[in-house]
């Protein structure tokens, strides 16, 4: 059983310039007093309120789309759901194994062989080595890369690397899947086969949260959507209505 519950979640982060990261400036700053300090400080540190009072409740079978402008807080929200960002205030309760799949090639090493990268990528997804070796043949076969798997992946084309990353990333089904702009699958010849696998994969996931700018993608995957702006939820409901609101917001 997977579930997600966010109560009054707020996230803000200071944006550091090089000068605020410097210890020297911090020390000088605390030595100078009075009004000047207040001025220099407010000039140097600006706080971005990335999420404000977010309330979400998701259960088994939910497919949630996140839509909104760049910088509306979609990615930050995904990171909070994935446990990467801990909010400044509010409660996050997530039950079930969660896999944030923002970059399916995360952790792949250019100098290592295809096989080594399957293991590496699998370890990143939280699989024990034994299990990866058990799945190795199936993954290798799906990629259709054959003998190339014995070569370092820097010799691969972009499409071939994509195949490999895609095959491993879709080989383990988590309870909760967090996606940023969907999952790419590489070259066209591979696309059909990939789509089938992707469908089988996503069907078995309990909860999916997808952030995307592609209306088609959101519409095809998610029944419910959140429209976000300035770190707040401005509309929550059926995807079609959310998209309508989004279009109205952009003045179409």
């Amino acid at each position, binding site marked *: 059983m997977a579930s997600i519950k966010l109560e009054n979640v707020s996230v803000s982060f200071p944006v550091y310039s090089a000068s605020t990261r*410097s210890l020297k400036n911090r020390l000088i700053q605390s030595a100078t007093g009075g009004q000047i300090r207040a001025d220099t400080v407010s000039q*140097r540190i600006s706080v971005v309120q990335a999420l404000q009072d977010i309330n979400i409740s998701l259960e088994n079978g939910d497919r949630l789309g996140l839509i909104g402008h760049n910088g509306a807080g979609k990615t930050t929200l995904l990171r909070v759901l994935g446990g990467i960002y801990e909010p400044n205030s509010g409660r996050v309760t997530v039950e079930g194994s969660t896999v944030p799949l923002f970059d399916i090639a995360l952790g792949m*090493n250019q100098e*290592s062989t295809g096989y080594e990268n399957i293991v590496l990528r699998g*370890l*990143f997804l939280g699989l024990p080595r034994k299990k990866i070796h058990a799945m190795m043949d199936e993954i290798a076969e799906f990629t259709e890369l054959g003998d190339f798997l014995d070569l370092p992946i820097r010799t691969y084309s972009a499409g071939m690397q994509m195949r490999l990353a895609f095959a491993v990333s879709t080989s383990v089904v988590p309870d909760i899947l967090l996606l940023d702009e969907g999952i790419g699958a590489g070259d066209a010849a591979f696309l059909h086969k990939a789509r089938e696998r992707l469908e089988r994969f996503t069907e078995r996931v309990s909860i999916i949260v997808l952030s995307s700018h592609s209306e088609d993608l959101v519409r095809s995957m998610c029944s419910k959507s959140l429209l976000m702006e300035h770190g707040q939820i401005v509309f929550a409901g059926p995807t079609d209505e959310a998209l309508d609101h989004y279009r109205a917001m952009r003045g179409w």
Partner: protein
Amino acid sequence: MSTDTQHGESSLLIQLQHGLKREQFERALHDIRAGWNRRELWMTLGLHDVRQRYRRSKLGPFWITLSMAIMVLALGLLYGQIFGQDLHDYLPFLAAGFVIWGLIASLVNDGCQSFILAEGMIRQLNAPLSIYAYRGLWSILIAFAHNIWVFLGVALWFGVDLNWNLLWVPVALLVLLLNGLWMALFLGLVSARFRDVPLIVGSVVQVLFFITPVIWKPEMLPGRALWLDLNPFYHLVEIMRAPLLGQAPALANWLPVIAITVVGWAVALFFYSAYRWRVAYWV
């Protein structure tokens, strides 16, 4: 959406208040335990880090061994002459000291980088933060396993009395790594926020190399100087060097080391509980 804050200077204090809760302490401990459980991942990453550096070179990681051997021989012959030392005695001392110093210096220096270098992964992977600290320790341990052969070679050549005291070496290594872990968690955290900490630490370590008896022997000091005993790095080096050279471990070295370990862990746990949750925002 973007607002200037009037409380900018106290934002670290605000975060501290959030962090200083009992549950944050428990989460920090859980993070360190859960990180240990992901050892298949960080062992692989640490190994890849080492291999990456020497990929496609003929000798591979044995360059670590070779460059250490060249360093020890060159400095040993030079300083042996300068200090008028008997090489039978001096070269094993220098080899042991150098290998151990290499270990300790990289524990401190690489510890500062533990989170900074993992920036991309921290923001995309929901794994315990401590795996990046373990990963650094693991590649340092691999380098040490290559370096120790230089000492063994020198020791065999000069017929150093390798005796039962050698059993203390793994104990000392474990304690050094335990210290390395708190350093990676604490220094890694501070460095992620204040980016000149690694630079400050780097130059301090460089100075410490000269004031710690690595190339010179404690006996060479006219009268045992107080600041030798006040130098924590002297004790850290000595707990491992003494057994390597066949001497029994001295309580006078072990007590300070135990104190460093306890105090270091207390400080590291305090900061790790309080600020661990901010690291993903800082990197």
